[in-house]
């Protein structure tokens, strides 16, 4: 193999200067509910997997898929790279399945009041009214509330929980499930493949363009409750869809694990945007495998916002498989006290005339650690490929840390590749300028941060942007003191 350009850099930076000691006001949800209808005991075994599959009344191939995945999970070593320590996860102290109610709810009226109370806290009903879109809100392992706007149903758009999708569209699911993220891809993908529950199944028929975003709220709501949702999105030829997922979780003192797998397939000419805002409680390991295939002239956009969690490891990937396909990853990460955000993106060019863009922004504060970890790969012989990577980081104080691990592997001399990275802190002059206009220091800091991530917040629907801004205000406004 003739590698014309291999670039591998690692920069570590931390700021010596500290403006003022900062304290943190955490954004916590205090509500939680504990009345589960079915809840398995903690721990993982073949028997647990068989029970999950039986409870869901799954076809045999899915049970086999689960059991095979479980074997892979047991064999695979825990990754030792990354900024956090994954060895701390105690798999036997996690509940692998719980359901609040066996049947799905389509109308808000039917949703149990305890669940409503929790959702009220994060504004789901409001979002539902505002968006008029289908809300698939996942309460622990199963979708309890699922409603699709009539428009989607008329157009033939399928938006179901993954479990329902498996029942109603077995052929489609069998064809694509595990085709983008193989069951032995990584330890956590194997775990998910073995014990998955819930998540969304979306199919958009040929030539159907959906402008209203599809939304799903996810939520972990029990101590030591693992959440292993599985999402599969297929956009058929020349279709278009925007899928939005928002997560918040109540705080618990014991460790919790979220290991999701998201598989996205954009067939010829299709466009898929997948937006996520996650705000996990800071005791949660958030280990997600997100991957997309873009076929001829297709477009994939990952918009990914990571707040909270103890450790997030997430690198949305795009395989540009077809000629003329395009991929874009836009992400922000905020790492606060006791939090590590190890996030990034991967774009693999496998065809001519393909374009990839990665924009990553991170903010580290109160000792938080953030890392950009990315991969751009362009194969030999490909014509007219372009790839741009831009990562910007803000360090709020000297206790915090930011690392950049960009890997760029280009085997094609004509490829246009650029990589840009900056690390800075909130400028004293900018701060003074805003303060000279009567704006208090903490508010001025917040405004600068909101400006820094505006490239991201402009790309998400207004309601989400408002919620994101509110979270950031809470995070930063009381932090200067």
């Amino acid at each position, binding site marked *: 193999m003739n590698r014309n350009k291999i670039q591998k850099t690692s920069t570590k930076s931390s700021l010596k200067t500290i403006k003022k000691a900062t304290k943190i006001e955490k954004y916590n949800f205090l509500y939680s509910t504990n009345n589960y209808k079915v809840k398995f005991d903690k721990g993982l075994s073949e028997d647990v997997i068989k029970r999950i599959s039986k409870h869901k009344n799954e076809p045999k191939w899915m049970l086999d898929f689960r059991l095979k995945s479980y074997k892979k999970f047991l064999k695979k070593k825990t990754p030792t790279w990354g900024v956090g320590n994954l060895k701390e996860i105690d798999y036997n102290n996690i509940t692998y399945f719980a359901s609040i109610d066996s049947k799905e709810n389509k109308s808000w009226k039917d949703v149990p009041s305890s669940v409503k109370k929790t959702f009220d806290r994060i504004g789901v009903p409001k979002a539902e009214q505002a968006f008029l879109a289908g809300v698939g809100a996942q309460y622990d392992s199963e979708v309890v509330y699922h409603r699709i706007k009539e428009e989607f149903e008329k157009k033939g758009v399928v938006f179901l929980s993954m479990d329902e999708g498996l029942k109603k569209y077995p052929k489609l699911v069998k064809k694509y499930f595990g085709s983008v993220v193989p069951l032995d891809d990584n330890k956590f993908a194997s775990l998910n493949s073995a014990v998955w529950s819930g998540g969304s199944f979306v199919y958009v028929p040929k030539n159907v363009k959906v402008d209203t975003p599809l939304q799903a709220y996810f939520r972990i709501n029990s101590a030591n409750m693992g959440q292993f949702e599985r999402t599969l999105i297929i956009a058929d030829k020349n279709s278009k869809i925007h899928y939005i997922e928002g997560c918040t979780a109540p705080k618990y003192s014991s460790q919790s694990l979220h290991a999701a797998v998201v598989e996205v397939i954009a067939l010829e000419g299709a466009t898929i945007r997948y937006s996520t805002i996650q705000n996990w409680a800071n005791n949660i390991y958030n280990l997600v495998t997100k991957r997309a295939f873009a076929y001829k002239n297709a477009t994939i956009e990952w918009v990914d916002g990571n707040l909270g969690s103890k450790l997030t490891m997430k690198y949305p990937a795009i395989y540009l498989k077809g000629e003329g396909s395009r991929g874009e990853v836009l992400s922000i990460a905020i790492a606060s006290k006791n939090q590590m955000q190890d996030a990034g993106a991967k774009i693999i060019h496998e065809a001519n005339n393909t374009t990839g863009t990665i924009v990553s922004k991170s903010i580290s504060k109160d000792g938080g650690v953030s890392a950009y970890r990315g991969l751009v790969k362009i194969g030999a012989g490909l014509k007219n490929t372009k790839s741009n990577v831009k990562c910007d980081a803000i360090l709020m104080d000297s206790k915090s840390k930011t690392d950049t691990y960009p890997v760029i592997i280009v085997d094609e001399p004509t490829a246009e590749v650029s990589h840009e990275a900056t690390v800075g802190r909130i*400028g*004293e*002059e*900018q701060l*003074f*300028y*805003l*303060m*000279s*206009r*009567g*704006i*208090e*220091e903490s*508010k*001025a800091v917040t*405004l*600068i941060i*909101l*400006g*820094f*991530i*505006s*490239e991201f917040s402009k790309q998400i629907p207004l309601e989400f942007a408002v919620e994101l801004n509110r979270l950031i205000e809470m995070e930063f406004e009381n932090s200067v003191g």
Partner: protein
Amino acid sequence: MKKLLLSINNLSVNVEHKKILSKFKLDIKEQEVHAIMGPNGSGKSTLAYTIMGHPKYQVTSGKIIFKNKNILNLSADKRAKLGLFLSFQTPLEIPGLNYFSFLRNSYISTYNKKISVLEFNLLVKKQTKLLHIDDSFLSRALNVGFSGGEKKRAEILQLNLLNPSLAILDETDSGLDVDSLKLVCKSINNLKKENPNFSVIVITHHKKILDFLKPDFVHVMNEGEIIKSGDKSFANNIEKNGFTKIIDEYKKLKPK
């Protein structure tokens, strides 16, 4: 009798341990316009930043009394709330911060009162019209991609909205064409008419702005102090003869 608005006494200021202002003195009454001229590096901008409360400028002695209050321990935002305003020589760019949203935040903070977006929009639109600022600026990021002149007019828009008691104009005229300069000065003269305690400190290198603002006093600064003051006609003298003669005369008279 006009009330004293700002009184600076015996003010010495260090920047990164270097002395820039030395036993500086200046009194400004309500409804007065003071021009400050002087060679580059004489401490004019330092004076402006120090009055506004930039943390980099360390006051080693003296007092700044504004509206009968010693403001030296106040942060910049508190000084702004008291009625001080600085029009920056080089306004800062803040990527991603929407100009309109910045204006509204600054208005709400300064006046400590809520104003709806719609209501505020009306206020702002009135100003953009007066200052010939295209409304599209309001949806752009603060000062990002603004030309030099646009930045300066944007500063005056803020000045008009915040309506302070004392405006410090740090080389507001640089980068402005004659028409823009006229607009800006007209707008400042209006503030003076409408606000009975409004006063201005104009820091400038050019007489032109003084033709429009008609200062009551013209001061020349050198090496961190005022070395000579006069009335408006003094500016003509400076423009004709430069600073060298004034500085030399002062040095001869100054007791060692």
